């Protein structure tokens, strides 16, 4: 069995009467790049802040590297975190941020930090308050990565960036993760970003986990079926239709979940879905009132 970097059981977080996370069961294996996706208010940031110990759970348990997150210095050293809107000290220069990192982290990798700075073309003498959004995100990532963490958590780090800087940022992120050999969890609205860099998906909606699996097998267990509306009604019984469009003219399309590959059939055509439509289908299903939420928690982890 692969050891889990991050493990939660019955994890629940409430803010007053609002439930941000409800009974979350997760187990994230080492070495993955995890995409945490979901609509606004799904609980993504809450889950990440719980994972790095910024906040504590209302009930349930979360363990990172087998310990309660954020309590001991040696444990803090193993987790890198880039918060939403990538905070940096506006009065400190870029170089002083590295000095801060070097002084506060025993595993600080100065060479790595300097390499990343040069790669991001950041001027060490510049005040962090004068950096653009993209540069600030790069700086925050550099500080988090040069700790040499085993787990890197990034909360929508690329959300505020224009497409070009986002591309550059994600490239740097992947280089860093590869260089560190770390596990990474990144939350994002941008499904193409997730499809590009992640190999594991966690789909959160309304505080619950709806999907949690490696992306390749996940896609293999879904299919896009195109055919006449009447024929799609006659799909095998072990196939679950997640979403279906029936245009008045032209063929109907259904996104289905199936445990084994659909047999070739002349009545319909089967193609592999892309991650985006798969996620959207599951989100639409999660948002449907009266949808069975309990059975869909971790439905994909049975192997």
């Amino acid at each position: 069995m692969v050891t889990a970097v991050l493990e939660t059981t019955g994890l629940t977080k409430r803010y007053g009467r609002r439930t941000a996370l409800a009974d979350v069961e997760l187990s994230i294996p080492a070495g993955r790049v995890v995409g945490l996706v979901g609509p606004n208010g799904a609980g993504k940031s809450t889950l990440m802040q719980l994972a790095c110990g910024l906040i504590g759970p209302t009930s349930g348990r979360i363990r990172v590297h087998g310990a309660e997150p954020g309590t001991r210095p040696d444990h803090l050293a193993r987790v890198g975190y880039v918060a939403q809107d990538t905070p940096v000290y506006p009065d400190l220069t870029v170089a002083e941020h590295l000095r801060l990192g070097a002084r506060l982290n025993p595993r600080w990798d100065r060479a790595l930090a300097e390499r990343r700075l040069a790669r991001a073309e950041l001027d060490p003498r510049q005040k962090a308050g004068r950096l653009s959004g993209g540069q600030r995100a790069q700086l925050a990532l550099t500080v988090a990565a040069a700790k040499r963490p085993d787990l890197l958590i990034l909360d929508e780090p690329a959300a505020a960036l224009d497409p070009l800087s986002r591309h550059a940022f994600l490239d740097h992120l992947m280089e860093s993760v590869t260089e560190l050999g770390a596990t990474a969890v990144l939350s994002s609205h941008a499904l193409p970003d997730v499809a590009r860099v992640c190999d594991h998906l966690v789909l959160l909606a309304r505080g619950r986990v709806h999907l949690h699996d490696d992306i390749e097998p996940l896609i293999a267990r879904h299919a896009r079926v195109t055919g006449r509306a009447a024929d799609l009604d006659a799909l095998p019984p072990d196939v679950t239709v997640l979403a279906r469009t029936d245009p008045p003219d032209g063929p109907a399309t259904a996104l289905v979940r199936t445990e084994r590959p659909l047999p070739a059939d002349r009545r319909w055509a089967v193609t592999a879905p892309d991650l985006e439509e798969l996620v959207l289908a599951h989100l639409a299903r999660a948002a449907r009132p009266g949808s069975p939420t309990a059975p869909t928690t971790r439905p994909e982890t049975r192997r």
Partner: protein
Amino acid sequence: MIWLTWRQFRTQALIGLAALLLLAGYLLLLGLDVHRAHQDVLAHCAGRDCAGPLGAFADRYRLRADLLGYLLLVLPAVLGVFCGAPLIAREFEAGTHRLVWNQSITRRRWLAVKLTVVAGGCTLAVAFAALLLGWATGPVLAVEGARFEPVAFASHGLAPVACTAFASVLGATLGLHLRRTVPAMAATLAVFTVLQLALPAFVRPHYQAPERTRVQLTAPIVANLSKIGTYGDIGGLRVPGGPWVIDTSAILDEAGAPVGHTDWFQDCMDHSSLTDLPRCLADHRIHVEITQQPAARYWTFQAVESALFALLTAATVILAVRRLRTRAD
């Protein structure tokens, strides 16, 4: 962490240090002047009655001594508001707590270093200023017998030092709870003002049981009163030896009866000039009953007040640490 705290605090610290050096320079000059004048007065009146020349000496420096006393009275509040309150609130406002709390250092240690460096720095600065002020204006206060006056008490000795430690920790803790700089500054100022008003009025008189004594009202004492009411109530009594007068009765005659409604008293009040009035009244052998703290208790009171502030500081630190432990973001 010490480096980071210093780096964040650097601008305020340097401005503060420059201001402190200016103040120190002024106090040094003033102190030399005061001590020389004091020696001169003592040398000239040796063997004779020194009260007059010493009074003139005190009058000459009173305004400056009072103003400096007020400065040291508000200095802890200023430091609490401008150094304490932004210390943590600013991190929350900029979101940088999420950056620094994820370095390999626990939050408790982060708080401990921040508080020690900043509150410690402020406290040292005030200790230095209070020491210099005590030296510079000491002779003036000694002549006036006014060490126990609320402003003088709070601006000399240990009291302002302990008070600064409390004010800066209070500011930081309020910042931790309120998470915004300006409200934290306002709250610090509010709490501090209430405390500085309530302390001398309601708490300080009870550090030790006060003594009741009778004070004979001689002409010089009457002349120094700030108020003589129409029916014999008085204000601003200063007693030789400099005890802290907490409460005074109305003017009493030898038998202990109030003199406010006697004919001779009304006669003195109505028909004597300001210069003759003390003589006119004192000739009737009048006295007042006072509640007082003897001057010898000064350092005991300083120690009690400092201990009180130290206790408040410790309680505030506990509140801050508890807030960190609940980890609400």
